């Protein structure tokens, strides 16, 4: 009887075993094992233009420290040149014996020169690569990408980690940076506007106190015997934004224009900007921000920049009585000055994108979406012939 019952349940058991087997093979991902002896875990890639084609610099993660107290990630930079980026990747494989793995790549850095040429030809490899994370950040750097990636960060063991920190959500909400990803850049490039943007990076020497510098070089001298030759540490800035038209870098937005761009996107929350109160510098915090760029197409193409910002006095550059510090009230004159400042930033932003022939706000695309017929008539006049109107409203917390 028991045997009969057992035989009867065999099909169900077999079914469950097969189901388990298939789930195991589909979803195990080979247990996500990465053989670090054979694989190069690429954290960032830098692209330079050469006469032959491209130079690719990959920042590859290597384990750091020989005990638990010295954890963290260190990296090495490996360079290769080739006619295409793919050739460079193959060259890196040939040079190191490591299979390049881009799945953890979080940053693609383009040199200034490379960005001025056809960017999509440089990003082509990454757009095609099914195993590439298309949420990785893009940035243009001053000078060569190879040298930029090889700089020593003052804030992290690995330069790319320090750079990516600049593109965090919190940094974006400050209005100081406009990060962009590979996917969104491609969407902008392949749209009717053929325009996009990415942060423009600069590296500055970190000023250290003499005592720290001495201590540091003394330690290094003791360890490596290279006293006095220590490489200067860098901090990175991404407050400028490179704007692209038809895949080529057309201009660089100043930090003020970047702030205006960010405000118009409605990104800013607790970001700050400076203005004047009775000719004295003050800083205002943006508590709430609504921004929009709307295209009107009734008679002729017009663009309306609308900005609604709620601010609070953050800091005065002068002494103030305690009543002023404890009060949330912002004088109407300060609000008026703030409005003028923001208007100036937005005007400046508009002039820059018009001069660069960059449709940064996707006006052409919006025109097509509203009327394909009008698009065919007006498309060649964008953005130069578009009449801008500006509406800025600055209010204070009640």
């Amino acid at each position, binding site marked *: 009887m028991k045997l009969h019952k057992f035989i009867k349940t065999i099909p169900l058991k077999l079914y469950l075993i097969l189901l388990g087997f298939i789930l195991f093979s589909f979803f195990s991902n080979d247990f996500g094992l990465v053989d670090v002896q054979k694989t190069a875990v690429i954290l960032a890639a830098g692209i330079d233009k050469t006469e032959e084609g491209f130079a690719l610099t990959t920042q590859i993660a290597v384990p750091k420290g020989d005990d638990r107290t010295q954890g963290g990630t260190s990296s090495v930079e490996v360079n290769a040149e080739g006619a295409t980026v793919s050739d460079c990747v193959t060259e890196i494989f040939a040079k190191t014996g490591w299979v390049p793995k881009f799945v953890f790549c979080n940053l693609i850095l383009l040199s200034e020169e490379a960005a001025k040429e056809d960017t999509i030809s440089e990003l082509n490899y990454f757009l095609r690569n099914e195993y590439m994370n298309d949420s990785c950040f893009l940035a243009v750097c001053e000078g060569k990408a190879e040298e930029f990636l090889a700089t020593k960060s003052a804030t992290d063991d690995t330069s790319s980690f320090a750079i990516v920190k600049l593109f965090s959500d919190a940094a974006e909400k400050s209005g100081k940076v406009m990060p962009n990803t590979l996917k969104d850049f491609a969407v902008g490039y*392949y749209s009717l506007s053929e325009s996009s943007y990415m942060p423009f990076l600069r590296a500055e020497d970190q000023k250290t106190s003499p005592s720290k510098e001495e201590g540091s070089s003394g330690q290094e001298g003791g360890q490596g015997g290279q006293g006095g030759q220590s490489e200067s540490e860098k901090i990175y800035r991404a407050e400028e934004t490179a704007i692209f038209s038809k895949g080529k870098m057309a201009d660089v937005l100043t930090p003020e224009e970047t702030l205006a761009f960010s405000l118009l996107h409605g990104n800013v929350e607790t970001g700050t900007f400076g203005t004047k109160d009775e000719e004295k510098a003050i800083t205002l915090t943006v508590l709430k921000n609504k921004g929009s760029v709307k295209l009107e197409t009734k008679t002729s193409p017009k663009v309306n920049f609308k900005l609604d910002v709620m601010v609070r006095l953050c800091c005065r550059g002068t002494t103030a009585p305690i009543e002023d510090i404890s009060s949330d009230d912002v004088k109407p004159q300060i609000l008026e000055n703030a409005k003028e400042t923001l208007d100036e930033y937005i005007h400046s932003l508009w002039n820059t994108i018009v001069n660069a022939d960059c449709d940064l706000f996707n006006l052409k695309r919006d025109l097509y979406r509203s009327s394909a017929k009008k698009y065919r008539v007006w498309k060649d006049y964008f953005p130069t012939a578009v009449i801008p109107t500006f509406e800025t409203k600055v209010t204070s917390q009640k």
Partner: protein
Amino acid sequence: MTSISSRKITARQLYFYLACVTPVGKLVILPARLANYAGSDLLLPAIAHILLQAAAVFCVLLLAKRNKSFFELLENSVGKIAARIVILIISAFLFFVSLVPLLEQKSFVQGTFYDTIPSLVAFAPFFLLSAYLCAKPLISYGRTWDILGPLAIVGIVGILILSVTQADFGAILPIGSEGIMKFLQGTGYTFCWFFDAPILLFLLGKIEPEKGLAWKGSLFYLLGGLCVIFFIVVFYGIFEQTAVNQIFGFSKTSKYFSGMTVLGRVDFLFIYALAFVMIFYTTLPIQAGIEGILQAFGRKKYLPTLLSLGVNLVLIILTAVFDYEFGNVMHFYSEKIFFIFPVFTLLLPALALLLRRKRHETS
């Protein structure tokens, strides 16, 4: 306890299949192919397909109240030999069309769940399960659909919730701007993804009769189709012109959700759920094809097992042969022989309505 031969698929199970399981196969490569052929008007061919298939489902389910298998209906009208030939042709079509979801799923598993291309062996267990399922009567799917239905709902809703905030719905505007040729191209070249109605033909006689089954069934199919359409809008809203490059649709859209940086890829839970449903969606045309042959030639003792092993063996060989030919195979199915599909997926269900209720008595 009722034996499997006397068991029937309930209306609920059928509705789960039509509303929840059938959309899953349309969420992988189809959105990218539609974007390729129809541009920003990708929605229109999808709507056309869903309406046409819903009409075909309606036709097939109208036959369900006759309570006869498709072979019996054919036999009554055209005789045994002709009926067998017709069944063999339809089964061959179903085996042929099964290669579309099969290769699609293989590429999906390799491309989505693995960081580097795994060996073909990683996909091999699929054929063991497929061989097992295909040796069982088609009716055994009823209970499976009871499980797959809710699972598919969780998967689709989860993916849509995570994706919808990232979509720019204006991307599909202005509707109709791509022109009639793009619409026709988009509709014609994506026929191979819509083969739900002919599968139902082999369920005839195995569905519990219910009042209004035909219109309710097509309504549930439309409900599933609505999910597909909404997903396609979200998909195009996220990727816009780059959508043509985004194969493996439902595994791509949810990863841009802003909370993902904190939570990690939680969307994989929903992707796993849909990938699980896809396993059964893929085996269904194979099993339906075998069911057709068994209806025509009788369910002899070892015939289901032998047929299942034989068909799956051929499919293993084809999968291995086309391991690196996925693009070419899809191109062949969608652009070279696209005209075959409407014959089986639309014309056949419509013509099936002409089948006689009773055997024609010759004097």
